[in-house]
């Protein structure tokens, strides 16, 4: 095993180009477990810790450019306003020690369906900034997950940052685990309201081979909200609408039975989380609307 220690992003890209099998290591929270348990013996480890750029973020007009290695602790503490869904997801990641090391780049690189960040990224809307010596490109998050622990990266590419749409409305995130802390998701659900476009987006984790959006559920809800004039009248979402939305979210799952939970439970739980997060976000939206109207 060789340990490559690039001092800059350019050096890292060059190293990855030269050694496409090199395994990038940043927080180490996935890679080191595999090494410690003898599940993986990469030929090269490519350390990204010395590349300061990866630990920074910029808040732009439309979106946040989040460096791939920004630790979850900082996301949950400092980006709660701009990225509320991701901040909530960050807070569910493992333990304080892990949140101090791990970042979104690692979740994307591993592309496990159980990665905590994915549902929040899917719901918010995001693009992955991937780069190689050949150049840089932005991969829409919807196209990023290609299979179980597989993603759209080319062998010579590294993740530099994620561009996540700034929240224009309430966002929520829930995760089911069989422990009250430090637990891998049995399943997870992210929901974002986008009042500017009058749409909702969802993200489901650990309930299909890849993280997925419940597109049919989104379409149903978009139409129902539009038809009922909910965005304007700020009424409570009809229970039958919430119920149907939840059912469609469950239907978007394609889960398996495993040691963490049954497929049937995962479908059920995603439905419950969909209904609850819709209630929480919508109540929050109504609250802000009322406040804004009161102020106007």
């Amino acid at each position, binding site marked *: 095993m060789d340990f490559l220690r690039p001092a800059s992003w350019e050096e890292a890209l060059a190293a990855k180009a030269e050694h496409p099998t090199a395994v990038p290591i940043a927080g180490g929270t996935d890679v080191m*477990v595999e090494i*410690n*348990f*003898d599940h993986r013996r990469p030929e090269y480890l490519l350390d990204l810790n010395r590349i300061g750029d990866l630990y920074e973020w910029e808040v732009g007009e439309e979106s946040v450019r989040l460096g791939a290695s920004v630790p979850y602790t900082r996301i949950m503490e400092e980006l709660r306003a701009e990225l509320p869904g991701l901040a*909530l997801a960050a*807070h*569910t990641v493992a333990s304080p020690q892990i949140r101090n090391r791990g970042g979104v780049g690692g979740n994307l690189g591993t592309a496990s369906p159980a990665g905590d960040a994915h549902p929040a990224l899917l719901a918010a809307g995001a693009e992955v900034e991937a780069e190689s010596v050949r150049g840089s490109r932005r991969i829409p998050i919807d196209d990023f997950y290609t299979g179980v622990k597989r993603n759209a990266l080319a062998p010579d590419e590294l993740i530099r940052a994620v561009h996540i749409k700034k929240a224009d409305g309430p966002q*929520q*995130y*829930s*995760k*089911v*685990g*069989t*422990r*009250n*802390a*430090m*637990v*891998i998701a*049995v399943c997870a659900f992210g929901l974002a309201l986008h009042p500017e476009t009058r749409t909702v987006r969802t993200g489901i984790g650990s309930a299909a081979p890849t993280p997925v959006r419940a597109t049919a559920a989104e379409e149903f809800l978009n139409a129902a909200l539009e038809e009922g004039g909910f965005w304007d009248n700020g009424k409570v979402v009809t229970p039958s609408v919430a119920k149907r939305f939840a059912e469609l979210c469950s239907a978007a799952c394609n889960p398996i039975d495993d*040691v*963490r*939970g*049954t497929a*049937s*439970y995962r*479908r*059920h*739980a995603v439905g*419950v*989380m969909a209904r*609850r997060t819709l*209630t*929480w976000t919508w109540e929050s939206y109504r609250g802000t609307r009322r406040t804004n109207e009161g102020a106007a």
Partner: protein
Amino acid sequence: MGTTGLPANITQGSRTKGGIGESTLRPDGTLKVTGEFAYSSDMWHEDMLWGHILRSTVAHADIVSIDTAEALATPGVYAVMTYDDLPTEVKNYGLEIQDTPVLAHGKVRHHGEPVAIVAADHPETARRAAAKIKVEYRELPVITDEASATAPDAILIHENRTDHHIGHVPHPNIVHRQPIVRGDVAEARERADFIVEGEYVFGMQDQAFLGPESGLAVPAEDGGVDLYIATQWLHSDLRQIAPVLGLPEDKVRMTLAGVGGAFGGREDLSMQIHACLLALRTGKPVKIVYNRFESFFGHVHRHPAKLHYEHGATRDGKLTHVKCRIVLDGGAYASASPAVVGNASSLGVGPYVVDDVDIEAIALYTNNPPCGAMRGFGAVQACFAYEAQMDKLADAVGMDRVEFRQRNAMSQGTLLPTGQVVDSPAPVAELLRRVKAMPLPPERQWESSEGADVRQLPGGLSNTTHGEGVVRGVGYAVGIKNVGFSEGFDDYSTARVRLEAVAGEPVVTVHTAMAEVGQGGVTVHAQIARTELGVTQVTIHPADTQVGSAGSTSASRQTYVTGGAVKNACELVREQVLEMGRRKFGTYHPAWATAELLLEGGKVVTDAGEALADLVDVLGDEAVELEREWRHRPTEPFDLRTGQGNGHVQYSFAAHRAVVEVDTELGLVKVIELACAQDVGKALNPLSVVGQIQGGTTQGLGVAVMEEIVVDPKTAKVKNPSFTDYLIPTILDTPTIPVDVLELADEHAPYGLRGIGEAPTLSSTPAVLAAIRNATGLELNRTPVRPEHLTGTA
């Protein structure tokens, strides 16, 4: 803390500071908080090698061939050993039955069985070399349950059994069977107005001690070996290790290294023999440290169980009869299975008065992971089932569940189903009363001015509910655990105590082979020495095999038995010192001859408090030292047909009240409070006592809602050997645990004490389950209960 009913003849405390009854602090505390305390995995020796074990990848197979050539040729590798390299004819070991191969011979019987061992200059070299060993398996069908184990054509897990249970078991794939029959169940059933039945399942729990199996074996110039090891019983290890190495026991010198928890998981050998074999083969010190993955294969687990119970009661709420059948899965090797069967059967009705009983308990041989000792040892599985039954029956009778238990609670003088009289206090009803009397925690504690605090809700930080679907439930349970080794086992301990004057101060040294695994035995030994010898300065000698056996740190027995041995040795030292004093100073004061003399504050004093001499003056340059064995009252085996016999020496009782909040839609549970009341006889160290009760309670909570080793029934392979998927409670899963300690002395035991470590693990689980049933209205016949069981999505 309540104190009731101490007989007058029992020492209640000490006038020497730091004696029994005080919450003195741990002697190893400072080293443990500075990181200097040397655990078994911290051992280091110049020029040492690393050992590694190659384990079977399948559960049941014939070994066709093993090829170690490539592994041996790996640079940095010093030795590769298989069964063929074992030095003597003794190639098996075992606690009671020597059925466990040191290295697999021709066959593997469970997933993760040791097949070959490697020593190399770096752990990675050893791992890579082990990966190069080619083992060809011819897989056999797996036996995973009672039906497959006892089928007429079942493959025998162990052929040609010669152990002493084979004569009375109905099938060679049954390790041991113990019936307990008393009265006439058929007749009693006629008298029952209500009968309830239930089928219960207890999942496989792991001890999950944090310090992995590890140790260092150092070859000695005399051809022997020095082993630094974490274990629960040095001398039991020694008895099993030495014959395999072909060494006399005095050439295998064992020293207890720091032990990172045990809970039963270190009763059996793990890497001890392997490290010694490699050290003797290479002539170099060999260190072996399991990682967590390997640890799940490297020790036995708590027996999973299937239990069928029938309980009857009369209209006025008196138990008529209990009939039950307990099937424990012992896995591939016997380990402690026979004794677990003895406990499960003899304590199978719980702490209740019932005259007509028909119990049968068996342990199976299967291809599942071997199971053996874990805190609570057979009594845990039974308690889970009989307490569920007691709730059911109370409901059938239409009586309050606690009142129903109290009406049937045993007390001093009660006859157990084994015919044994409970001859010390058994405050079962009182413990239930106390735990029920504690104030309930406030409702809806998650509500705050800033909205719901998810940390206080089911799901915690995962943000699954802000109060939706959350229902509170309350449940009660009580249990009975035997203390000490039962069924006629010669359960003794040994203590060597030395009293001398050092630099003008009297100093006591206490030397035992007791394994300090965290329980605080070392703290208590120093307290006993202070109390008995009136000396403040006590040194606890490291535990090793240079002193006689202390027995196991299990069965809640060490404070009783090794504590008893220390007390006894101190008393004998005191007699000798007083005799020295009489010889030296007797002529100067008549009280030397006439008064009852004590040692207090470094002086010889009369019972009236008059000081006669300083201990240092009595001792002069002489040291008083002696080593003695000490035994508790003997027990006897249970009759193999009827289960009758005075099998136990002491009992321990605890009761719990669990308060839970369940997110009924998602099936997530938060335990809000787990209150415990326990009778401890005499709290030698109240701080340690409460710590034991809280720790035991939490392990019971773990198996109620999350802990389970999952074995694939098709392959008998373990599916979750890691801390990612075998979950134990975090600090966010563990509630406040108020403890009410009752002290009713057992006049047969030193200071009236009662073994305490296990009882809280028993009743905690059924109390939590009862609370979840109370919240959800579901029947819930298995533990751990998982979200799918609470949501109909299993």
